[in-house]
C-alpha cells in the first residue's frame, strides 16, 4: 500500500472507474458511484464488522482475487470488482439463505415488515423458498422498557446493536452474550435500557429484533404519512422523520444530517409523541370556554383587544412569543405588535434564557459556531455549565465521538454539574476555571456552553480557532434572539416587573404563574394544553410542528425547514366507541380546526385592518422560504448581511 500523502486509489467496479480516498472500502467506493452492495453489519456510522458476509463481491483482477467481503476490503489501486458476477451472486444468495435458517418467518406480525433490510435482501437476493428442513433456534425475549420491544428469534447476528450501544453510545447495560449458535443480544436481566440513545437500536437493527414499542402493531411503512422534519424538543435541531397515520403521530425516526445529528437521535426526541396525540390538546377556538368558529373567535379577540385598550390603554398589552415558536410566526409577531399598537413585544419569558440566547447571537458567527459535526472532530472540548443529557443529549453523543477519537474533555466545575455529570458517555477531567484548560494547545478546540453563570467566562476564552456551541432553551431560541434583538424586544419578566402589563397575547409560550398575577386579559395561541391555555379567555388552537411547514434556527444558527407530516385532527383511534371508525362521510376531520400559528397571527393582523394578504418570512427573512427541508439546512450568516 502506498503511503504517499493524498494518494487516491483508482479501481474499476462493474466497468465504472472509481477514484476514492485512501482507506475507503470497496463497498463505500461502490456506493459513491451509485452501485448498491447489500450489507447488514456495515453501517456508515459504525463502520465494518465483517459479521454478515452478505456484501460479497468478486475481485476479478488486481492485488486481491476471488470472492471478498467488500466492507472489509480497502480500495486499492488496480482492483477490478464485479458485484454482478455469478459466483458473488451465488455467495450472497447462499448467505441470505443461511441467515434465514433460524428466522421465525413471522413478518406478518413483525413491525419491521415493510421497512426491513433483511426482508428486502432476502427477496432481492433470490432466496424465495426455504429448502432447509432442520429446526429453528429460538430465544426467550427480554423486557427492555416501555419503548423498545425485543424479539431475539429474528436476529441475524450482525452486531450492529451492540456496536452502536456500547461503542458508539457508551451504554454498558446491553451487550452480546454467548458464542456460536447461542449468541444473545440483551441485558443480564430484563429491564429498562439505561442509555438515553437506546431508541436508535430500532433504526439500526436491519431486522425486527428491536422495534418501537410505542408504535407497536399500529401501521406499515407504506401507510405512514411521512415528511422530513426537525426535532422540537431541544435547541440542537436534530433531523427526524415523523411517521403518522390516521392523524396520530406513531413514531419518529432519525434522518441523516452529518452536520447536525449524524444518523441518530436521542430517546427524548424519538419517544415524545404523546404531546401531539394528547386528547386534551386545544382543538377548537374557545371564547370564555365556549366552542366557536374561527371567524367568531378572531372577531371576539379583536373586540376584546379594543375593549381592553379602552380600559387599560393599548400599551398595557404584551405580545409574547417563545423559543419554540417557528420562524414563520415569530417574524409576524412584530407586525402584529405594530398593528395593534401593543405595549410590549417579548420573545422570551425569563431573563436567564434571553441572556443566554443573546450571548449566542453575539458570540457566534460563521467561523466560531460549532456544529455537532465540528464537535465530533474536535480534539479538545470544554463543557461550561452544561447539563448535556437534559438540554441536548445528542451533543453528549457528539462529544463521545470526539472522545473516542482521542479528544480531551474538560468539565468546568459549576453549580449545574453534580447530577448532570451522571451518565455522560465519556470520560472527562474536572477543572475549576475555564482558564485552566489548555485551549491554546489544541488544534480544534470547542467550548460547549449551557445555562448558568459560567457563561460570562466564555468571552475572554474566545481566541482565534476556538469554536463555540450553546445549548439554548428551545428549538428556535436562536431565531427568537435574533428577532428580539432586531426589534428591541424585552422579556416578559421585565415587562411585568415594570408593572404596565395588564393583558397578554401568548403565542405558543409557557408562562410561569407568578408572571400572571394582576393580568386581567389572556388570549393564548397554542397546541399544547398548557396552564396558560387553561387560564386564557380566548384560546386559538394552533398546529403542532408535525402538522405544518415551518422553520427553526438551531443553536448553531442553522436554519432548517420542516414539512407538514399529517393533518391536524382527532386521531381515528378511539373516535367511535364501537371500535371501528365512524360510519359517515365527512369532508373535514373532526378536531381539524387548528391552524399554523403564523396563519392565526396573520389573520389577526389582517383583521386589525392595517395589512392585507399577510405572508410569513418577508424582508430579510425571505430567503428562508426557499430552504429545502431535505438539505442539511443553511446557516444564517451566509444568507443575511444584516446579522452580525
Amino acid at each position, binding site marked *: 500500500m502506498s503511503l504517499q500523502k493524498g494518494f487516491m486509489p483508482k479501481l474499476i467496479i462493474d466497468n465504472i472507474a472509481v477514484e476514492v480516498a485512501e482507506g475507503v472500502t470497496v463497498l463505500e467506493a461502490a456506493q459513491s458511484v451509485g452501485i448498491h452492495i447489500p450489507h447488514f453489519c456495515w453501517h456508515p456510522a459504525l463502520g465494518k464488522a465483517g459479521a454478515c458476509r452478505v456484501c460479497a463481491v468478486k475481485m476479478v483482477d488486481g492485488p486481491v482475487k476471488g470472492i471478498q467481503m467488500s466492507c472489509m476490503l480497502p480500495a486499492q489501486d488496480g482492483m477490478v470488482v464485479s458485484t454482478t458476477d455469478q459466483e458473488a451472486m451465488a455467495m450472497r444468495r447462499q448467505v441470505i439463505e443461511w441467515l434465514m435458517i433460524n428466522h421465525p418467518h413471522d413478518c406478518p406480525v413483525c413491525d419491521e415488515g415493510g421497512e426491513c433490510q433483511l426482508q428486502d435482501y432476502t427477496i432481492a437476493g433470490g432466496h424465495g423458498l426455504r429448502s432447509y428442513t432442520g429446526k429453528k433456534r429460538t430465544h426467550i425475549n427480554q423486557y427492555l422498557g416501555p419503548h423498545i420491544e425485543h424479539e431475539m428469534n429474528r436476529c441475524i447476528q450482525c452486531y450492529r446493536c451492540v456496536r452502536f450501544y*456500547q461503542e458508539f453510545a457508551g451504554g*454498558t447495560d446491553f*451487550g452480546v*452474550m454467548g*458464542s456460536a449458535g447461542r449468541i*444473545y443480544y440483551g*441485558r*443480564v436481566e430484563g429491564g429498562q435500557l439505561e442509555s438515553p440513545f437506546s431508541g436508535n437500536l430500532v433504526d439500526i437493527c436491519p431486522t425486527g429484533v428491536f422495534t418501537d414499542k410505542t408504535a407497536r402493531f399500529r401501521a406499515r411503512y407504506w401507510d405512514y404519512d411521512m415528511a422530513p422534519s426537525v426535532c422540537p424538543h431541544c435547541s440542537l435541531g436534530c433531523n427526524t422523520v415523523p411517521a403518522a397515520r390516521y392523524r396520530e403521530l406513531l413514531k419518529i425516526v432519525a434522518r441523516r444530517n452529518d452536520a447536525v445529528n449524524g444518523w441518530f437521535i436521542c430517546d427524548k426526541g424519538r419517544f415524545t409523541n404523546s404531546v401531539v396525540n394528547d386528547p386534551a390538546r386545544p382543538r377548537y377556538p374557545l371564547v370564555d370556554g365556549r366552542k366557536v368558529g374561527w371567524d367568531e373567535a378572531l372577531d371576539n379577540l379583536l373586540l376584546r383587544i379594543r375593549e381592553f385598550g379602552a380600559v387599560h390603554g393599548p400599551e398595557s398589552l404584551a405580545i409574547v412569543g417563545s423559543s419554540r415558536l417557528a420562524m414563520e410566526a415569530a417574524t409576524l409577531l412584530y407586525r402584529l405588535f405594530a398593528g395593534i399598537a401593543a405595549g410590549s413585544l417579548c420573545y422570551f419569558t425569563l431573563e436567564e434564557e434571553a441572556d443566554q440566547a443573546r450571548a449566542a447571537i453575539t458570540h457566534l458567527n460563521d467561523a466560531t459556531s460549532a456544529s455537532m459535526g465540528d464537535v465530533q472532530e474536535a480534539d479538545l472540548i470544554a463543557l461550561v455549565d452544561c447539563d448535556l443529557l437534559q438540554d441536548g443529549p445528542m451533543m453528549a453523543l457528539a462529544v463521545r465521538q470526539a472522545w473516542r477519537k482521542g479528544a480531551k474533555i474538560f468539565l468546568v466545575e459549576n453549580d449545574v454539574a453534580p447530577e448532570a455529570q451522571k451518565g455522560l458517555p465519556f470520560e472527562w477531567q474536572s477543572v475549576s476555571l475555564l482558564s485552566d484548560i489548555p485551549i491554546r494547545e489544541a488544534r480544534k478546540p470547542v467550548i460547549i456552553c449551557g445555562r448558568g453563570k459560567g457563561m460570562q467566562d466564555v468571552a475572554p476564552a474566545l481566541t482565534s480557532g476556538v469554536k463555540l456551541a450553546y445549548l439554548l432553551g428551545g428549538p428556535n431560541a436562536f431565531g427568537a434572539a435574533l428577532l428580539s434583538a432586531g426589534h428591541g424586544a424585552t422579556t416578559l419578566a421585565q415587562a411585568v416587573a415594570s408593572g404596565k402589563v395588564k393583558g397578554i397575547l401568548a403565542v405558543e409560550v409557557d408562562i410561569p404563574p407568578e408572571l400572571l398575577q394582576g393580568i386581567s386579559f389572556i388570549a393564548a395561541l397554542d397546541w399544547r394544553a398548557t396552564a396558560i391555555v387553561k387560564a386564557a379567555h380566548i384560546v386559538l388552537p394552533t398546529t403542532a410542528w408535525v402538522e405544518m411547514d415551518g422553520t427553526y434556527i438551531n443553536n448553531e444558527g442553522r436554519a432548517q425547514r420542516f414539512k407538514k407530516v399529517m393533518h391536524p385532527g382527532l386521531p381515528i383511534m378511539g373516535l367511535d366507541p364501537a371500535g371501528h371508525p365512524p360510519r359517515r362521510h365527512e369532508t373535514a376531520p373532526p378536531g381539524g380546526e387548528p391552524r399554523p400559528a403564523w396563519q392565526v397571527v396573520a389573520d389577526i393582523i389582517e383583521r386589525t385592518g392595517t395589512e392585507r394578504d399577510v405572508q410569513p418570512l418577508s424582508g430579510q427573512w425571505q430567503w428562508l422560504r426557499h430552504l429545502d427541508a431535505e438539505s442539511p439546512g443553511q446557516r444564517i450568516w451566509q444568507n443575511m448581511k444584516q446579522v452580525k
Partner: protein
Amino acid sequence: MIPTQLRTRLEQHVAAAVTSREAAVQVMKELQGHYGWLTDEAVGEAAQLLGLSPLQVEELATFYEMIYRRPVGKRVVHVCDSISCWAMGGESLLAQLAAHLGIGPGETTGDGMFTLLPCCCLGNCGESPTMMIGDNLYGWLTLEKAVEILQQESRSMME
C-alpha cells in the same frame, strides 16, 4: 462475599493489567475456583472488581466455555469433539462415558462428582481422542482408560 485475601489479590491483579478487560478471565477463573462455578453473585463481584458493568462481565463469561455459568460437579470432564478426536472415535467415547456415568452430555452425576461436557479442540490432536479434567489433559484414550481416569479422579476427590 469473597474472602478479603482473594479480593485483595484480585484487586492487585486488576490494577496490574493495562485494561480491566484483560484481567477479566483471570478474575472470573479465580472466582469460579472459589464458588465452584461462576454464580450470579460472582459476576456482580467480578464487575465490581473490574470496573465493568455486570453485562460486560457476562458477555465474557458466557463466551468462554470453561467459565461455568451453571452449577457443575466437582470435576468437569471435557471430552474433545473436534475433528481429529472425532476421527479417532471421540464421538463414541463421549457416548460411552455418558452411558457409563448414567448422564447425558452437559449433565452432572447424581453424587455431584462429574459433569460431562463435549468441548472444542483441546490442542491435543496428536494424542486424540482426548479429554481434560480440571487442568489435567489425558490422551490416547479408550473407554477403559477413561473410566480408570475417572475412578482415579473420584478417589483423589475423596481424600
